Structure formats: structure tokens, C-alpha cells
């Protein structure tokens, strides 16, 4: 419904830092399926859910058992559940709406990344990728876990499950992160191993269906699907991000793979040596196809957390260099379009909003920066009769421009509006946006907003000015837009199960905004108030009288103290 008015270049990329979110020391972030809520894991073991529309804190998930830093957060597909992994080797599954912990499991190793199964509405299976061993499939309901195969070798027809320790020529650490992720359907997992291969593994059977060797053969650090599931990115140790296309269908993926498998079996019938690896590689070519690579040829920086934009048109890579906050944005077709530079703090995590051209990056200081498009005032909205020009255009007038008699057909230019046409005020046509869900399940997009009660926090800074109410404390400065108390004893009543009243007092939730001109004027107004009170109140009663909703009797003005600001 808002498609006709809003600029069609919505699928663009961000340009500047628009805002920042600060609360505690955030370590990792994730948007929910529509980008209305942002979950952030902090270094104290709690998880904060930000309402992204108001940029305020909506909920705080805190478990007394977990006090160590969070390593990753992951939403379930429809936003009902949240999986949190922490450095104390635990995995916690939360029910977001009720803010209750569903399950908590302790693993053998700390999971660097933990992902929830994107298939079901209320998933219990999740994928945990520890730092130095093979990824695990964990069932949160009973705590059982199974290790996923990481590589296939030729001895017999066995899969070797343990990771291959790889020693670099410069003798650096043997710890190799193994990357793994679910595909869109939740039936497959793509595992990137240290030999530079992508393995396609079925979830139910842990069977390897295909192998795709990544050009370059370097250790794969990250593997990421886009939201539509059509493209895959890998981030390798050779400082290159590679793009692949996913050729598998969205549904019934396993069936498709089994078909390909049996086809391969048939063709290999007469071959004596039954080479599993070759067969898997053949299958692999039918699953994922290499498209192109992205890198910074000049500075050859290592990348961290590559991700897609919501519609898959743009690819973002964060620079892993400490001391700089750089985000590189490429078109999917290959060209570098933008380098975003932030304050000189290393990047820990980056996410792209699922629907809008907004990127949120977390720096090592624990602050999340919100990058958005530079806001350009749409002047033509104020004057629709005028056409906005990019540059001066020479105007060539028509032959009859200055004729005294208007042209005949100009009168008919006014579109005849059929006043008797049926007008439909109720039916809604859903605009087609890229939706991940099939619309059958109810999604958790918003959490009910529970207003936290007023606190008496600000002191009265202008004792000279007449008070508005019986007792009132005026706001301290126009910079802070904090809410002040009204002097009444406000009892919280049944207001907030998760009241953040205790945090409002501290300055931890700081919001930096340009002080509005309005705020400055307000400040000036307060100082001027006593002098201009009488003059203003008379203008209120006389000139405004015919325009107000109800009668303002003159005796009411005595209590009215604010002046107009026009």
C-alpha cells in the first residue's frame, strides 16, 4: 500500500551512521525475520531485545546461570524463539514472548556460532559450531548431540569425522574454525572444512551428499546463505569472499539429492574403482555452483562476518583488522560500490536488516552503530505541482505560451474523476515483499510495549518559572529527552513484568541525537515565560477562539503558562 509513494530505490545500501544503540557491552546481534526486533548478546551473559522501530529496549533475557559473555544469538524462523550460546559452553533456548527459558544445555566445547533449525515454527534442533572441533547437531529437548562429518576421505568408504588438523607454513595455530550453516529449508547443512571444501550434509541421516571444492583451497571461516536461499557466501583464510549459487530446490531437497545420488550410482556401475569422493564431487557440482569472488586486492584484508542484504542484491564484508571499522559493500555482480568507515574501533559483528537498507555493526567497545541511507529531504513532496530537477535546464517555451486565449485542449487536461465509481475502503492487497515465511504460521513481529512508570529523576532547574502542575520538575536539558515525573506518586501497579525502571535511572541507555531546534526553543521559552505570560494568554483566548475545538474560557488561561512557538 505504501509502494506507490515511497521511493522505488528502497533496495539500496546504507551510507552513514544514523544512530547508535548502547546498553551494556554487546557482543553479537541478530535481527528477527522482519527486522522489527534486534537481539543483542552481552558480555555479562544477558540478552537484550531492542525494539528497532523505537530504538528502545523492549525486553531483557537474563538467566542467573549464565554470566559469561554471549558468543552468538539466533532467532527461530518466525521469531518465537531465541538461541543463545555463551563462553561457559552453554546453549540456552528462550521463548521470546513469555521471556522464559525453555532449555539449557552444556556442551563439551564453547560454541562460537549457534543456529536454530529454520524449518519448524518451534525448533528444538540447533547447530553448534565450536572453535576447534566439528560442528554438532544438538537437540535442545533432550540434550543429545551428534557430530557432523567434516570431511570425506578415501580409505574404505568411511567418513572421517574428526577435523583434520592443518598446520600452516608459518606455524600458526592449529585451531581451525569449522563453519557450518543450515540451508533455507532446514533439511541440509552446509559445512565448510579446513581443506577448503563445502560439504552438503543431510540433517536426519548425517549423510554427506556432495562435496564442492572452493577455489583456492583455503580454510573456510564462514559460510552464509542469503535469505532467499539462492546464494551462498564463503569467507576463506586466503582473504577472499566467494559467491556461489544454490541450484537445489527450496523444498524436498533431500529427495532431489537422493535422485542425483542414484543417477550417479547408475552411471558408475561399470567403473571398477568406486571412488566416493569423485562421486560426491560430481553431485556437488549439481548443487552449488561457483560464481565469483570478492576481495580487496590493494590491502588484502582479512574479512569477518560476510553477509547478504535482505534481498540478496548486495554483499557486505567487514574488515577484520583491529583498529579500523570498515564495511565493504559489493554488488552481487561483482563491483565494489561503497566502503563505510566508522570510528576507529574493531568490528565484532555485522548484520543487514532483512527488509530495509540498514546495517547494524557492533564494535569492540560494545556499541552498536546503525548505518542507514543518508536522509535527503524530498522537497517535491511539499510542492507537488513543481518538478524537481537535478541541474539547471534551459526552458524552451511553446509557440503559444503567451497567447491571450488559452488553448482549447488545456481545459480537458483535468482528469475527469468519476465521482460515482465504487470506492473500496476495506480490502487490502498485500504488496509482494520477499517473505521467508509461507504466511501460514503466525509470526512474532512485535513484543507488547509495556510503559515503564515515571521516576523522579530530574531536579527542578528553573525555580523561577511558574509550574505547570501542582508540583512539577522540568526537564534538565533539551539534549536528553528524558521524561520527568509529574509529582504524583505513581505506583507501578501491574505494569511491567520486565520493567526496566532500574535501568532508566542510570545513564546507560544513552541516545545521541542532534539536539532539535525545537528543544533549543523550548529552553528559550522557559526562560522567557514569566515575562510574556500575560501577552500570550490573551492571544490565546482571542485569536484562537474560533479555531479551537472547544471554548476556552478566559479564566482557564490563568493556569496556562506556555507560550506559542511559531
Amino acid at each position, binding site marked *: *500500500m*505504501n509502494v*506507490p*509513494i515511497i521511493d522505488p530505490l528502497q533496495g539500496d545500501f546504507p551510507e552513514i551512521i544514523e544512530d547508535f544503540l548502547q546498553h551494556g557491552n554487546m557482543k553479537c546481534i541478530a535481527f528477527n525475520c522482519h527486522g522489527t526486533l534486534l537481539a543483542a548478546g552481552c558480555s555479562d551473559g544477558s540478552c537484550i531485545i531492542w*525494539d528497532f*522501530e*523505537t530504538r*528502545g*529496549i523492549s525486553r531483557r533475557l537474563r538467566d542467573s546461570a549464565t554470566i559469561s559473555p554471549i558468543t552468538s544469538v539466533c532467532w527461530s524462523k518466525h521469531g518465537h524463539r531465541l538461541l543463545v550460546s555463551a563462553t561457559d559452553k552453554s546453549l540456552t533456548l528462550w521463548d521470546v514472548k513469555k521471556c522464559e527459558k525453555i532449555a539449557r544445555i552444556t556442551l563439551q566445547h564453547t560454541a562460537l556460532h549457534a543456529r536454530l533449525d529454520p524449518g519448524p515454527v518451534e525448533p528444538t534442533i540447533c547447530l553448534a559450531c565450536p572453535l576447534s572441533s566439528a560442528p554438532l547437531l544438538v537437540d535442545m529437548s533432550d540434550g543429545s548431540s551428534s557430530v557432523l562429518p567434516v570431511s570425506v576421505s578415501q580409505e574404505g568408504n568411511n567418513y572421517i569425522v574428526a577435523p583434520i588438523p592443518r598446520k600452516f607454513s608459518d606455524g600458526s595455530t592449529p585451531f581451525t574454525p569449522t563453519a557450518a550453516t543450515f540451508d533455507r529449508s532446514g533439511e541440509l547443512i552446509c559445512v565448510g572444512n579446513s581443506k577448503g571444501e563445502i560439504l552438503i550434509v543431510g540433517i536426519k541421516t548425517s549423510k554427506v551428499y556432495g562435496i564442492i571444492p572452493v577455489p583456492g583451497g583455503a580454510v573456510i571461516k564462514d559460510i552464509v546463505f542469503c535469505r532467499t536461499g539462492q546464494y551462498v557466501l564463503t569467507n576463506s583464510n586466503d582473504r577472499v569472499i566467494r559467491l556461489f549459487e544454490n541450484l537445489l530446490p527450496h523444498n524436498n531437497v533431500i529427495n532431489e539429492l537422493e535422485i542425483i545420488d542414484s543417477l550417479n550410482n547408475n552411471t558408475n556401475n561399470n567403473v571398477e574403482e568406486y571412488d566416493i569422493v569423485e562421486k560426491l564431487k560430481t553431485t556437488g557440482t549439481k548443487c552449488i555452483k561457483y560464481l565469483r569472488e570478492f576481495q580487496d586486492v590493494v590491502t588484502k584484508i582479512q574479512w569477518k562476518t560476510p553477509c547478504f542484504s535482505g534481498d540478496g542484491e548486495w554483499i557486505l564484508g567487514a574488515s577484520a583488522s583491529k583498529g579500523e571499522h570498515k564495511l565493504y559493500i559489493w554488488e552481487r555482480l561483482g563491483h565494489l560500490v561503497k566502503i563505510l568507515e566508522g570510528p576507529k574501533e574493531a568490528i565484532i559483528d555485522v548484520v543487514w536488516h532483512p527488509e*530495509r537498507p540498514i546495517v547494524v555493526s557492533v564494535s569492540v567497545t560494545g556499541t552498536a552503530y546503525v548505518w542507514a541511507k543518508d*536522509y535527503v529531504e*524530498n522537497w517535491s*513532496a*511539499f510542492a507537488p*505541482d513543481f518538478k524537481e530537477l537535478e541541474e539547471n535546464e534551459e526552458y524552451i517555451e511553446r509557440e503559444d505560451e503567451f497567447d491571450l486565449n488559452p488553448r482549447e485542449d488545456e481545459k480537458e487536461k483535468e482528469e475527469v*474523476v468519476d*465521482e460515482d*465509481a*465504487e*470506492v*473500496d*475502503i*476495506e480490502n*487490502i492487497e498485500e504488496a509482494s515483499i520477499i517473505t521467508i515465511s509461507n504466511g501460514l504460521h503466525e509470526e512474532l513481529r*512485535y513484543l507488547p*510495549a509495556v*510503559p*515503564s*512508570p515515571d521516576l523522579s529523576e530530574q531536579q527542578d532547574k528553573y525555580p523561577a518559572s511558574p509550574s*505547570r502542575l501542582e508540583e512539577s520538575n522540568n*526537564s534538565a536539558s533539551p539534549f536528553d*529527552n*528524558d*521524561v*520527568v515525573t*509529574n509529582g504524583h*506518586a*505513581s*505506583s507501578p*501497579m501491574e*505494569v511491567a513484568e520486565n520493567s*526496566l525502571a532500574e535501568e*532508566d535511572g542510570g545513564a546507560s541507555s544513552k541516545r545521541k541525537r542532534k539536539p*532539535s531546534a*525545537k*528543544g533549543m526553543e*523550548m529552553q528559550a*521559552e522557559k526562560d522567557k515565560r514569566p515575562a510574556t505570560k500575560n501577552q500570550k494568554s490573551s492571544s490565546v483566548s482571542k485569536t*484562537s477562539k*474560533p*479555531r*479551537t*475545538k*472547544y471554548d476556552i474560557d478566559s479564566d*482557564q488561561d490563568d493556569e*496556562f503558562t*506556555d*507560550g506559542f*512557538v*511559531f
Partner: protein
Amino acid sequence: MGDATAGAGAGAAPPYRPYRLLRTVTAHSRAVSCVKFSPPDGRLLASASLDKTIAVLCSSTLATLATLRGHSEGISDIAFSSDASYLASASDDATVRLWVLKNLPNSNPNSNSNSSDEIGDRCVRTLRGHTSYVFCVNFNAQSNLLVSGSFDCTIRMWDVVTGRSVRCIKAHDAPVTALHFVRDASMIVSASHDGSCKVWDAATGSCLKALIEPGKGPAVSFAKFSPNGKFVLVATFDDTLRLCNLANGKSLKVYTGHVNRVYCITSTFSVTNGKYIVSGSEDKCVYIWDLQGKNVLQKLEGHNDTVISVSCHPTQNKIASAGLDNDRTIKIWVQDA
């Protein structure tokens, strides 16, 4: 009693069934400025008044369930959150107050007077920021944002949870008279005394469109989105109500017959049984027009002063109307079954 005027003009559609007066409630000691049924089921009816109070009534028995006191000046507008657990009120004391409506007593018919049963203050938050009368207020669909318009010509967006002013838009050159969120809360329409009606992007605060340009016509007293967000109902001080197409700004239907020159009278869509436009008027009547045919279907008489506000029940064929100082009553009209 209302009298049905000539033919609804719908041959195929069922004939228009007239509304009749069901009850009259006097819940205030001064002019009533706004009356609203609660979404989603219309269980509550709230009314705001110049006497600085808000009365919350049970809409079926019309017993007063609560009287919300706290404002120091008269109240111009109220709005329910989408699940009716909170109520916001806009007042002349330049504040917006947020009230909690949980645990209201069940409607035992106490009386229709202002006897309050309050233990403790129901006001949860006071939102300060405006510098002049706050005239209109509205929640968005997910009720995490409040938008308020004021005589200081600005529109402010507030975060419901913290009470912080998220955005302040210098919207117009004259007092903002009406504000409304579209169904999916992506846009806000604002009307103003400078004669303009503008549509704003809720996420960025930028002006998307000027439906009516400032200065070109009479002051716009009210604007509201249609339920599907494609049209805007605009009321102007020349006794006219227009239904405008949002995409191109053209006025598709014009409704006349009522009087609207001085007060900012609310109008609304009635969709529970047949599609109508309902509005108050300065000639003390409530007008009902056929949406498509634009003819006046009925004039509901009974108030003794300008009918300043009307509200349609979300599920039943019920209309509530409120009158100014000479009247001070809320009247409930129903359609005979």
C-alpha cells in the same frame, strides 16, 4: 429521533436501516471533546472532557468503570492502544498522559455520575515535550509508538516503553489538528490549520506527500486513513468532507450537507453493516452518508450543541456521539436489527 432522508440510492443493496437513540449519558461537568470505542471489541467507551477528566464506561451498560484524573487542563483527544490496555490523552496542559486500563471493575451499574473508584493513580507516564496545547494523539498498530500533534505546529513521536520523544517533526505552519497512523504503521497523515494535509514516513519522519497544499484552501480540521490505508478522509472548514485517493491525491468523493466551520469535528467510517461515513456537525446533528452514493442517509438529532466527536463500534452497529458545553452528553445510537 433521527429521520431517514430519501432513498439510499442502492437498488441492489439492502435498504438503509435507520439509527435510533438508545441512551444518553452525562459523565462530565463540561463539554465533552472526544469519545472513542476501544479496539478490538468495543468493550469500553472512553470520553474526554474540558473538565480535565476522562471517563471510562462499559459500552454495553454505560456504567462508569473509572474516572481518570490528573491533567491540569482540559483534554482534547484520547486514543486506545490496540489491545485497549492503555489509553493516551492529549491535553491543554501541553502533556500527553498514558493511563493503564487493566483490572477495571466489572460493570455493576454504580451510577452515571463521576464517582471514581480509584485506589491509586492510573496514570503511568506523563510525556512532556510539546510547548503548547496538545490537540491530537494516536497509537500505532503495534502500540509501541505514540504520535501527538500540538498547537506548537509540531508532531512528536513517543516511545511507549520509555516515554522518550523519539522524533519531533516541524510539520506545519499552524496548529496540527489531526493525526492518524495507517494500518501497517508505515505512514502518518496529519491535518493542520494552515490548510494542508501531509503524509509522513513513520520510520524516518520525512514528508512523503502533501495531499493538500498549505494555503490553497480552507483549514483542514480532520484527516484519517481508510481501513485499508488507500484513501484518506479529510474534513475542511468549508462544510465539506472529502475522500481522497492516497496515491494521486485526487478527491474521489465529496460529502456535504453538514456544517463545519469552527470546530475540529471528528468523522469516521462505519463498516459494520454497509459502508457509511459518519460525522458530527455544528448544527447539533450527527450525519450519516452513504460511502459510494455520497447522499445523506440520516441526520441524528438530539444533541443540544455542536456534535464534536463520533465513534463507531468496531463490531456492532453502534455510534457514540459527544456534544459541547450546552449539551455535555454522550449519546449512543443503534441500528434496529
